[in-house]
């Protein structure tokens, strides 16, 4: 079966700096893959490359069957990305934000409301402007706006950041559910104890280059991974 993500010697430049310096990666349909590595290793850039937001200067980059070197915009509508930013308009209410992004992606308002429910965003918050929400609540709303798009490939950058324990459990459940119904999840996290419980395998990225899977998650204990990233 064709990989959902297939990178070979992929190079991506941020300005003149090679944030990805020849990354190789294969992610199959229905997999949940954890990207790990120190700060500045290139995890976020790799996720942005897969979303078609950063151009690939050389190498091969196929995502969901689309050649990102030729047309990186082609894949965008089919992926969902959660980054450090919330992707929300501060002055609009929760529902106004969700309705806008749902309809922009071709989903319905009902899909948006269902996603808010699924993320556990209390209905009493729906009419509040996003600026009045806590960081954790914003994160949930942001996740809901991604969820209602029903993406085929989830690209999550530190998805547990800023969330309480319940919120983290919801995110983990959603990732598992997504994979069980055929979506693919690629996520970066430093919270290896939690992430290790969700991911099928991990890929290490360091200095913009990926380390082969065999040397990472499957053959290394979670405690060892946690030690690696501890300050």
């Amino acid at each position, binding site marked *: 079966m064709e990989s959902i993500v297939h990178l070979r010697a992929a190079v991506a430049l941020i300005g003149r700096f090679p944030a990805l310096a020849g990354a190789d990666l294969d992610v199959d349909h229905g997999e949940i893959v954890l990207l790990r590595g120190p700060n500045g290793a290139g995890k976020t850039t790799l996720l942005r490359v897969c979303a078609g*937001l950063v151009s690939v200067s050389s190498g091969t980059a196929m995502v969901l069957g689309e050649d990102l070197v030729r047309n990186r915009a082609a894949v965008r*509508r089919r992926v969902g990305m959660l980054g*450090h930013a919330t992707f929300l308009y501060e*002055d*609009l209410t929760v529902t106004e934000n969700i309705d*806008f992004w749902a309809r*922009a*992606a071709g989903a319905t308002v009902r899909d948006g409301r269902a996603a808010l429910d699924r993320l556990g965003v209390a209905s009493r918050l729906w009419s509040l*402007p996003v600026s009045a929400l806590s960081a954790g609540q914003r994160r949930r709303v942001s996740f809901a706006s991604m969820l209602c798009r029903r993406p085929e490939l989830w690209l999550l950058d530190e998805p547990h950041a800023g969330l309480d324990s319940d919120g983290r459990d919801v995110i983990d459940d959603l990732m598992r559910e997504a994979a069980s119904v055929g979506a693919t999840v690629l996520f970066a996290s430093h919270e290896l104890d939690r992430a290790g419980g969700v991911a099928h395998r991990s890929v290490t990225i360091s200095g913009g280059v990926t380390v082969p899977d065999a040397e990472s998650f499957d053959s290394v204990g979670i405690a060892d991974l946690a030690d690696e990233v501890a300050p």
Partner: protein
Amino acid sequence: MIRDAMLVAAKDLRLERRSKIGLAQVMPFAVLVLLLFAFALDPDRNILRQATPGLFWVTVLFSAVLTLQRSFGVEAEDGIPDALRLSGMAPAGIYLGKVAALVVQLLALEVVLAIGVAVLYDTRFIGIPLLIGVSITATLGIAAAGAVYGALAARLRSRDTLLPLLLLPLLAPVLISATRGFEVSLERETVSGWPWAALLGIFALVYLTLGSVLFRPLLEDA
């Protein structure tokens, strides 16, 4: 594309309704500028009346810059450029939606300013159809060109100071044409004023076309 444009326009107008920046800041600013012109030229009321068309459109341009800064400032916040790219909306649709929302806001401002010049400058509006024609085409031109440069400046740190520098010289033809159109209208020579409206229409059309094409690379580089 039309669906995307309507979605973006509705969102922008909703943002304005929620934040009230236009109502609480841009409109008072515009009225204040009219008032300052009145203070400066009041000793000779005749000059004030004669200068009304120019003063009106200069005030509209200054206010348009503020409106544009707000309109594109919100699109530069908290990952919104990425979200717009990922949304799959047609860039031309986003552009036309931004333009439509700007046109609505600027036309509302112009109605308030028209009342302002009638009260403060003792101006009497006579050629109403021409006034409306000139206002709509000039506003469309300002919004169409402004949205291109607003998107261009939005990604720069110095956007607040750069936008007026980029935009105001470019809008000089709009200022001249709209002012002449208004002058003709106020002097009851409404028939000969339509070429100015037509010129403004051409300007708007050129920028609407240009913006629809250019907005994709502008969005990519944001």
